[in-house]
Structure formats: structure tokens, C-alpha cells
């Protein structure tokens, strides 16, 4: 399924998640986390559904969803690249990694996901792997002591694998 195509959605999954937390509005954050685990983002109609089910205003749900960095309102790419910009990584020049990825994938500060839906680029404050700075994480695998060259090599590797998969 292409990234931007809206899936035909039923609310069964959401109902199950809501039941898991006994429709308790104080559990809004874990509820949204579980929903995002399912859909990879928070679709607008589902947020409205959740607010009705929990008996709180949709602006409250939207407020929480936009307050926390972990939540996203737009679909993400297939591969998620997180570049750590914690102090230790910053001191070890993590900005060079960011530059080279943005250039390679034609992304910038406002454009985080590639047009083909393959990559999403994020920066995180600190991954807690400072001993290996600079660090980046691709699809939950930590890569330490990175250079612009090794970063590019990693991305090329994924692109290559994707190409082979398509053929």
C-alpha cells in the first residue's frame, strides 16, 4: 500500500485499546501510544473518536498529541533514521551526519519524510549512548562512532536492499 493512501479503517482496534484502559481518560497517553504503535501515527478521525469515547474534548486530545515529541500526526516513512543531537554527539559533530543525510535524501528542516515514503529523518535529544558518540539509530538498531562516510554507506545499503526487494 502506498504511503499516502488512506487505509479503510475500522474502529475495532481502537475500541480494543480503549477497553484495555477501561476508557479511563487519565490513561490518555498510553492509549495514544498504543494507537500510534498500530498506525505509526495518530490519524485525525481516530483522535476524535478517542475524545468522544473518553468523554473529553477533542482539543484536549489534540493538545496532548501535539505536546509530546513522541506523537506524530503524519504518517512516517518505512525506515526511521534518528540522529542523536545530545551534547556528547553534538560535541562530536553530529550535525555533519544530519547534513549529509538531508542532502542525500533531499530533506530539510520542514520536510522530514522522503517523497517515496522510504525514509523519515528525526533528531532526538539524547539516546543515552553517549559513549559511542556520534550515534544514529536506523529502525531501532544503534550505530555508534559514525562518520559522514559510514552514514552514507548505511543509507545506500538500505536503498540497495529496497531496490532488490522491488525486483
Amino acid at each position, binding site marked *: 500500500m502506498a504511503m499516502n493512501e488512506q487505509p479503510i479503517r475500522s474502529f475495532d482496534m481502537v475500541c480494543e485499546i480503549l477497553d484495555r484502559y477501561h476508557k479511563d481518560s487519565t490513561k490518555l*497517553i498510553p492509549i495514544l501510544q498504543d494507537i500510534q504503535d498500530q498506525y505509526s501515527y495518530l490519524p485525525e478521525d481516530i483522535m476524535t473518536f478517542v475524545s468522544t469515547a473518553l468523554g473529553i474534548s477533542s482539543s484536549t486530545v489534540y493538545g496532548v498529541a501535539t*505536546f*509530546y515529541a513522541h506523537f506524530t500526526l503524519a504518517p512516517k516513512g518505512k525506515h526511521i533514521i534518528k540522529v542523536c543531537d545530545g*551534547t556528547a554527539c553534538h560535541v562530536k559533530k553530529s550535525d555533519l551526519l544530519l547534513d549529509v543525510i538531508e542532502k542525500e535524501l533531499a530533506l530539510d528542516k520542514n520536510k522530514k519524510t522522503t517523497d517515496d515514503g522510504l525514509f523519515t529523518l528525526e533528531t532526538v535529544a*539524547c539516546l543515552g549512548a553517549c559513549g*559511542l558518540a556520534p550515534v544514529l539509530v536506523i529502525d*531501532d538498531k544503534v550505530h555508534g562512532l559514525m562518520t559522514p562516510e559510514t552514514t552514507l554507506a548505511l543509507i545506500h545499503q538500505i536503498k540497495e536492499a529496497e531496490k532488490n526487494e522491488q525486483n
Partner: protein
Amino acid sequence: MNKIDLANHQKQFREVMEQYNARIVICGGTGCMANGAGEIIEAFHRILEEKGLKAAVAIAKEPADYYMVKSGCQGFCQMGPLVTIYPQEVLYVKVKECDVEEIIEKTLVGGEIIDRLLYRDEEDKGVSDMHHIPFYSKQKRTALKLCGFIDAEDIDEYIANGGYTSSENAVLSMTPEEVCQSMLESGLRGRGGGGFPTGKKWDLTRIQKSDIKYVICNGDEGDPGAFMDRCIMEGNPHSVIEGMIIAAKAIGGTEGYIYVRTEYPLAVERLKTALKHARENNILGKGIFGSSMDFDIHIMEGAGAFVCGEETALIASMEGRRGMPKPKPPFPAQNGLFGKPTVINNVETLASVPVILSMGPGKYATMGTAGSKGTKTFALTGNVAHTGLIEVPFGSTLREIVVDIGGGVIDNDGNNVGPDFKAVQIGGPSGGCLTQEHLDMPLDYETLTAIGAMVGSGGLVVMNQQTCMVQIARFFMQFTQNESCGKCVVCREGTRQMLNLLDDIIQGEATEDTLALLEELAHTVKIGSLCGLGKTAPNPILSTLRYFRKEYEDHVLRHHCPVGVCKAFLSYKVVSSLCKSCGLCAKKCPVNAISGEKGVPYVIDGERCIQCGACMDACKFHAVVLG
């Protein structure tokens, strides 16, 4: 449920362990895992099997020749992956998959030490006893003692090393007053940054009358450059649980929550496993340790907001709202989670509690300085030879930490320059910087506050002489500006304006008034903000201005970055000796600022240049440089 017999548990464990010839501990911290520790573990199993030998793993403890443990972070991240063999206590560093066979043949079977895998000292001699490696010998691992030695996912290992005896003792034979008193005696202060005496906090919650009281463990470690709490939660989750049980006994707590940062999935997983095992052993749940006390703990994952490290914001987040702080008082001790009395402690604080009770509060208080007792973990990172996780008594000096334990400062060319750092940032975005004049100052809560820094949660980032301090101040301001929750105007608007002023300085657009304005604004935000985030946000600016004012003035008045980092003050030049006169740079230049002809090196006209860098990218001979 049957009461757990800890002494018997310990005895049985010891008997089972006696059947194994050696204990192989492989560091499973994030650093070592990213460097291939997982492959090493597989290789051990595979090669042992090929040789007709076998290693048992935790939990099962089946008959085997060796016992293999994947531990939490051992701290020496720079030297990973780490493999330690007991009883010899020999530590192998930077182990690769291809070394495993040799380790099995020579060390495990032959009892011989492999010199090339040992840590090299200054004279390039291998150090076979890990206690003689300066990185470890200068530390005093207390809260971290079992972290990196035991298997985090095996409750038996924790119990065998004296775990849960402190909490059993507190639950069965101490009064809440006695527990609070012990904490006061030990001098333990909050390790999350505030430094409030733990015993006092507990006592304030204890005297509240309520049928429900909560114990919350604050594991929302968000400082960029700090990872102590993560290592404790991953490496010894039971110590955190035990600390929470003791806290519950002290305040009359009925329910516990651990609030963990969502960026720490492994910590969440390990804590869940630990909670499950504790419940199975009557350590959590109804009538714990056979007493009449009920206490259970739940996990709540954060959703990525630095401000939630502030306790009132954390409570808001746990109640399902935006994580915005509230004015204090009322303190959480009076009116906390869901309006009930609540005690909130940091991970490291809680992990220290069982250790204090087992060693005795009086003995704990002998470590450290007059006002700051005990030990503190630090995440040592940045331009330093041995990055990693360390624990030292309060009152240790920067020289001991950076030079003795950290092995010295590394410059941009990779040379070790000893203690010659430019600054050490302590306490992350809320802290301040220390300079070489503080090399021999004992570090504790009081001395650091006096010079405008703070212990914070314990991030120590070493910066070498090639670091631009204005850029560092900007980096921290960018972080706090992003993380400001937006509730109070001075913080929301003030951090943005401070960031803009720093940008002006870095981009060469600052005027003579900029520094004064920046300083005034920093003081305003410090005084006028509601919570700790805003109150401490200006610290990096104020402390860099205090120690590196000349560097700011160079940027503002002389349009010059002394270390050549700020791009606005640099110009592109052609190195004549490298230029092959191919003309590619001139062709690429969008403003025709480059001229030259065949046989003569090209020249860039600085007046016309817009510093786009196209020439540098185009040159195949690296003849275009920034300088």
C-alpha cells in the same frame, strides 16, 4: 502466598553456581551491544558446543561447564565489547567475534591469560587484574556496584548478592520513622538535580494523613548527555524496585509507578521482567515478605517531553494531561498524583537506598563531603579518552575524573592532551561550565552552586580547546527553547529571544548592545520562570559569559571566531599548492567570484563570495578550504 526465604535462596544459588568452572560476563549495555556483543554471545555458545562444552544461561541454570551472563552496562563503553572471566577476574577489552575461540581455548580451558586482549596501561603493558585499571580503581561503585556484574533479568542473581534483604528488614522490623531517620542520617540527597534531602522528603509525606499514598520513580532522564539512570534501570532494575519498597514503607505508600522515558525501550522491558519476578516471589503484591503490607508497582512510559522531569509536570503527564508544571506549594508530598500525598524520587536516589540500609547509614555518610554525602554517578562523555559511566564520592576533583579515570582530553586531531580541556559542561542544559581553574576543586552540591553550575543529573561533557563556547551556549538554548512547555511567558518568549540573540552573535549580526541585552534577559528568565526548566535555562549562557566573555566579544566586536568554528566569520580560499587550475570551481560559482587561468592557481574574491560552498564541493583536489 508463601513468604520468600532470602537466606535459603542465597544458599541454593551458591550451590548451583559451584558446578560451573567459570563465570563469563559479557557486557550487554547499549554501547557494547552496538559494537557486536550480541554476536560474541552467539559465538561463545556456538564454539563451546563445537568443542563438546556447554554454557548455562541465567534462569535455567542447567548442568553445564560454564555460566554465561549478559550484564548491564559496565561503564567502560569506549573499550567495548567487554568480556570478563571469573574467578580470575580478567577483563578483555575490544573483543571481536574472531577472538572468542582463543578465549575459550586459552583462558577457559587452559587457564591462561591472553595478553593482546588486555587493557594497555601507559607503558603499553597489559593489565590482567581489572581492579588495577585506573578507570575502575579510582571509582567507588556503590549504587552501580552490581550493575555490570549480575544478570539484570535474573532475580536470583540479585538475591544471591544480598538483594532484597534491606527491604525485607525495613518492611518486617523497622518503623516508618526509623526508615526516614536512617535516610536523614545517611545524608542522602536527591540525585536528579535538586539535591533535596531524601529523608526529609519522605518524612514530609509520612506525616500526611491519607488512605492512599503514591511512590513514583522518576526515570524521565532527559538531559542530553546523561545516561546514568538508563544504565541502572537496564543493569540492575531490582535495586530500583527495592528502593521503592523501602520508600513505600517509610511513607505508608500503597502504590508505585515508574515513569520511564520512551527512548529507553530496553529499560522498560527489563523493569517489566523484574516486576514480574518480584511479584512471583511475594516481594510485590499483597502481604509482601509475609507482612500485612500491600504494595505493587506499575510502569508508565513517557512520551518525549523534557519538562516532565520536573515533578509537578510529571504528575500532570501521569494524569493524562500536557506535562506542564504547577506552582509549588502545594508540594507533591501534600497534594500529588490524583490529589494524594506522593513521593517522587530519581532512579539513582532509589537505587542508593537499599545499599545505604545494608551498609549502614553511618558508614554511607563517611563517603563524600560535609554537605554532600555518598557517591554520585556521572556520564563522562565528549572529547575524552575513556567515555563511559562512572561513580565517585562527592568531593572528587575534575582532575581525578577527567585525567585519572577519563584518561585525558582528546583534541580534534586525536591526540591526548592530558588535562588541557577548554571547558567541562556539568549538569546539562541546566548546568554550567567548569574551566581548568576548577581542576582541583572538590565537586559537590555546594561548591558547584557557588560557581554558577550544578550537579544536575550528572552529565559531564568534556570539550577540547577547539570548541566554540558561543556555539555550545546556543546548542543548550536551542534545546531548552524546544522543550519549554509554553506555560509561562518569560520562559516561552525569553528562551526564544535568547536563542535569536545568540544566532545574531554567531552570524556576525550582533551589535555592541547585544551582550548586555542577552545578560539582562538571562537574569529575567532566571528570576521570572515558574519551574526549574526556565529558572536554569539561562545557566549555560551566564556561565559561558562568566568564563569566556572575551570569546563572545571576539564574535561581536571583531567578527572573529577564535577557534574558527562559526562559518559566518570564515572565508573560502584556494590553496595555491593544491590547485591544478582546472577551473571547475569558477564554473560552479553562482556569483562569478572566482577567477584564474590555465597554469595559474585560481583566486576567490572575498567581497563577491556568498559563502555557499559550491566551490569546495566541486574541487576534486581539496584545494578549496575554509579559513
